[in-house]
């Protein structure tokens, strides 16, 4: 932790907060982003750090509970997949299987604030192109080796291996270290520099705001340099637990590692057991007392959950479903068609049909109210006549037939959303056919279909997903949207640390996106989980991360 140097922007932000121009929570975010520990940032902001905020002092964990009892087994219902290569994980669930063995450089807490984990701090250059991370001292691998900057470099280099197939390549920070070499993308020489045994520096090709956030992403856990896939064959980590048994589709058993000098202080549980009941059966298994908690349950099971014993946990997130159209495919190349589609939908009416409780109404730009820099532009009111007129102008006076591909990739709620939309757009003469594909099939065509409904996970900052999904030419640009004005406005917002100023700049970004009508985003969904009374310290994370270090059973 570099307490001796505060980023100039931190002082600026503190001043803004003192002047009342920035709220305290926004300050917290700027300060922690720039390398002030969450503990110090909470102190500077004058806010009381919440007890279960998944962080205290310079540690990513909650403070020790004086009443906590050690021992016991925590049983969790979750899909169990193979643990092959952590860098190619494609689900949060997979990373939860390794999260207590393999740790991350940083971790975003349930309060959506990112804290240092295997590093103890970071520092960004004023232009946000050079980031220095100091590795936490005294972090030991299960084999007794100490974690060093070389180990971290090994991992970051690995993510950039063009043949590995890690989705980390798409992260803004990693993408800023890549260049095209022949037909592949490879690391720009000298991007990752080891300064000393515990300091590592990243030299980016362009400014990136979200480097610490990126290092909390689920495929970025840190493996030992001796790593060889599959991880389950040689589960060497730095965490407090070790993998003792894995049966894909059945169970994943973790046990507190004996004789391990763990850096993170005391952990209470003896064992953590994950059992696979498949998503739709988990809540029934919970109600039967077979598990203590489950990773999540869908909104269609909310009434059932209320009827059984247990505490329902919720998380407000920016997870959403984008009904997105490709701007270079007919008939969506005509903005009148896209606008008419959005105009025929009443977003505010869709949300309560799908999520009667919790969640936020979307306004057809991909920034959620939970994002610190969200600029509130309301969604224009539904206008069926206007939509009809636009369609007539575009040459569809007798209505238009559209087909949307959906995959229900994270639950049947996708279909509920699209069906609600189908019934609404009908009034404007749009016949919407819903083509339901199996989830894995949808992931093959998600960025190829002219019209599809893709789910996007929660990201802590509003600019992150815009950068990943809507910039000209980025790999995950599923709408093929290409707008120089948008790119420039986003660049400007991303180079602005101050949240208030950034929010002001987001107005333009969000407005361009809303006007372009490339996506319809009716809602941002909440997450639900449930836990029984014997378990203390479990809370719902907006990306379903599990961190059970301070969890204990009565």
């Amino acid at each position, binding site marked *: 932790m570099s307490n001796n140097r505060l980023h100039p922007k931190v002082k600026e932000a503190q001043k803004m907060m003192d002047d009342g121009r920035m709220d305290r929570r926004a300050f917290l975010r700027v300060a922690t982003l720039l390398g002030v520990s969450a503990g110090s940032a909470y102190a500077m902001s004058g806010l009381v750090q919440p007890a279960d905020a998944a962080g205290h002092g310079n540690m990513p964990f909650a403070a020790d509970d004086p009443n906590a009892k050690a021992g016991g087994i925590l*049983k969790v219902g979750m899909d169990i*997949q*193979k*643990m*092959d290569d952590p860098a*190619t*994980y*494609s*689900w949060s669930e997979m990373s939860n299987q390794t999260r207590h063995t393999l740790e991350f450089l940083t971790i975003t807490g349930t309060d959506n604030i990112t804290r240092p984990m295997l590093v103890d701090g970071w520092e960004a250059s004023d232009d946000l192109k050079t980031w220095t991370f100091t590795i936490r001292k005294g972090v030991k691998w299960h084999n007794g080796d100490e974690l060093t900057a070389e180990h971290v470099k090994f991992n970051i280099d690995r993510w950039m291996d*063009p*043949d590995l*197939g*890690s*989705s980390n*390549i*798409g992260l803004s920070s990693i993408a800023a270290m890549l260049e095209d070499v*022949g*037909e*592949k*993308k490879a690391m720009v020489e000298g991007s990752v520099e080891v300064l000393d045994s515990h300091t590592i520096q990243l030299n980016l090709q362009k400014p990136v705001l979200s480097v610490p956030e990126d290092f909390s992403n689920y495929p970025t856990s840190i493996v030992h340099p001796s790593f060889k896939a*599959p991880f*389950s064959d040689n589960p060497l980590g730095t965490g407090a637990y070790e993998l003792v048994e*894995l*049966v*894909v*589709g*059945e*169970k994943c058993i973790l046990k507190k590692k004996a004789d391990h000098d763990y850096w993170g202080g005391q952990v209470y549980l003896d064992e953590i*057991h994950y*059992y*696979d*009941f*498949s998503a739709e*059966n988990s809540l*029934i*298994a919970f*109600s*039967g007392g*077979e*598990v203590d908690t489950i990773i999540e349950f869908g909104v269609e099971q909310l009434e059932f959950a209320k009827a059984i014993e247990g505490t329902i946990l919720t998380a407000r997130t920016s997870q959403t479903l984008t009904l997105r159209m490709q701007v270079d495919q007919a008939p969506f190349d005509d903005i009148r068609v896209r606008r008419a589609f959005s105009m025929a939908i009443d977003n505010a009416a869709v949300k309560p049909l799908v999520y009667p409780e919790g969640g936020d109404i979307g306004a057809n730009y991909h920034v959620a109210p939970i994002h610190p820099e969200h600029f509130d532009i309301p969604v224009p009111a539904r206008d069926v006549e206007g939509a009809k007129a636009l369609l007539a102008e575009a040459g569809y006076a007798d209505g238009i037939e559209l087909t949307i591909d959906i995959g229900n*990739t994270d639950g049947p709620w996708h279909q509920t959303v699209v069906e609600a939309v189908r019934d609404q757009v009908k009034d404007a003469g749009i016949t919407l056919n819903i083509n339901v594909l*199996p989830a*894995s*099939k*949808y*992931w*093959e065509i*998600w*960025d190829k279909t002219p019209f599809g409904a893709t789910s996007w996970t929660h990201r802590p900052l509003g600019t992150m997903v815009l950068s990943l999904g809507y910039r000209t030419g980025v*790999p*995950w640009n599923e709408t093929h949207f290409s707008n120089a004005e948008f790119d420039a406005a986003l660049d400007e917002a991303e180079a602005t640390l101050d949240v208030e100023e950034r929010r002001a700049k987001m107005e333009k970004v969000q407005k361009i996106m809303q006007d372009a009508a490339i996506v319809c985003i009716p809602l941002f969904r909440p997450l639900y989980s449930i836990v029984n009374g014997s378990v203390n310290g479990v809370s719902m994370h907006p990306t379903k991360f599990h961190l059970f270090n301070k969890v204990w059973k009565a």
Partner: protein
Amino acid sequence: MTKFLLKRILQMILIMLTASFILFVIFDTPEFKKRLAVQELGGFAVSALTDASYESWLEKKGLNVPFYERYSNWIGAVVKGDFGFSQEKNREVGPLLWDKLKKTGILAFWVFALMIPLSLVLGVLAGMKEGSLQDRSVSFISVFFTSIPEIATAILLTVFLALGLGLVPAKSAMISGFDWKALVLPVLTLVIYDFGYVARMTRASMAEVMTSQYIRTAILKGLPYRRVIMKHALRNALIAPFTIIVLQLNWLLSGVVVVEVFFEYDGFGKLLLEAALFPDIEVVQACTLVAVLVAVLSQIISDIGYTFLNPRIRFS
């Protein structure tokens, strides 16, 4: 007899070759390779890969080897008893399949242990007096239960016995070791679905025997009714149900998919579904071989058994 067996085994090998060939062709298409990549790396990662990087990935996984080479390698390995490696489960297919088959075997054993006596007794009772109240009620019950799909039975049983009365666990994943109580719901579901069909068949066969000349003669001779049924009618009436019961073995192997998936019972059916969805080709292939083997074996057993039981039939 030997000729008959040889013919059947040859037939089986041909079916296996055809089925595995067709599956290999399907799984060898670029679409399925892409799906495998999506499963392994995630949709976001795959779309971030350049074409050249995707090719390298296929090469690393051994998926860019020409089709005929992969197929012949696979046959060579299977002949040596090596069923390959599961991409999804990260495990040798042989032991994996064996584990699951054992669990389905336990399920099948109990299904048969309950279903056979139940359906035979009911069928015989019904067929003894065709058209009687006894016959009509058994027939009604049989048709009624057979017409309810397994999934509906499974849900109803879960609601009543597990969630309502709390007598048995709702799910049969058996996370803390083998549990007899967890076997109750899947076994009941399968028995309820299947007994009606076998009972109906037994009834038809019994009814037919009861109208035959020799039974009439026996009754007219004044033999006690009980003795006519037990000594004369049963033996002949049970020939047809025997064949059907053996063939239920084959039905069970596909019938368990719904039940195992619903109850989270980790057997052959659940494995097959997961592998097909993944797509985990070597597991699907091995499961297909097992399914063909069971189908052909049960046919052989029923044919041989039928010939032994029915002296009018000879091997041809």
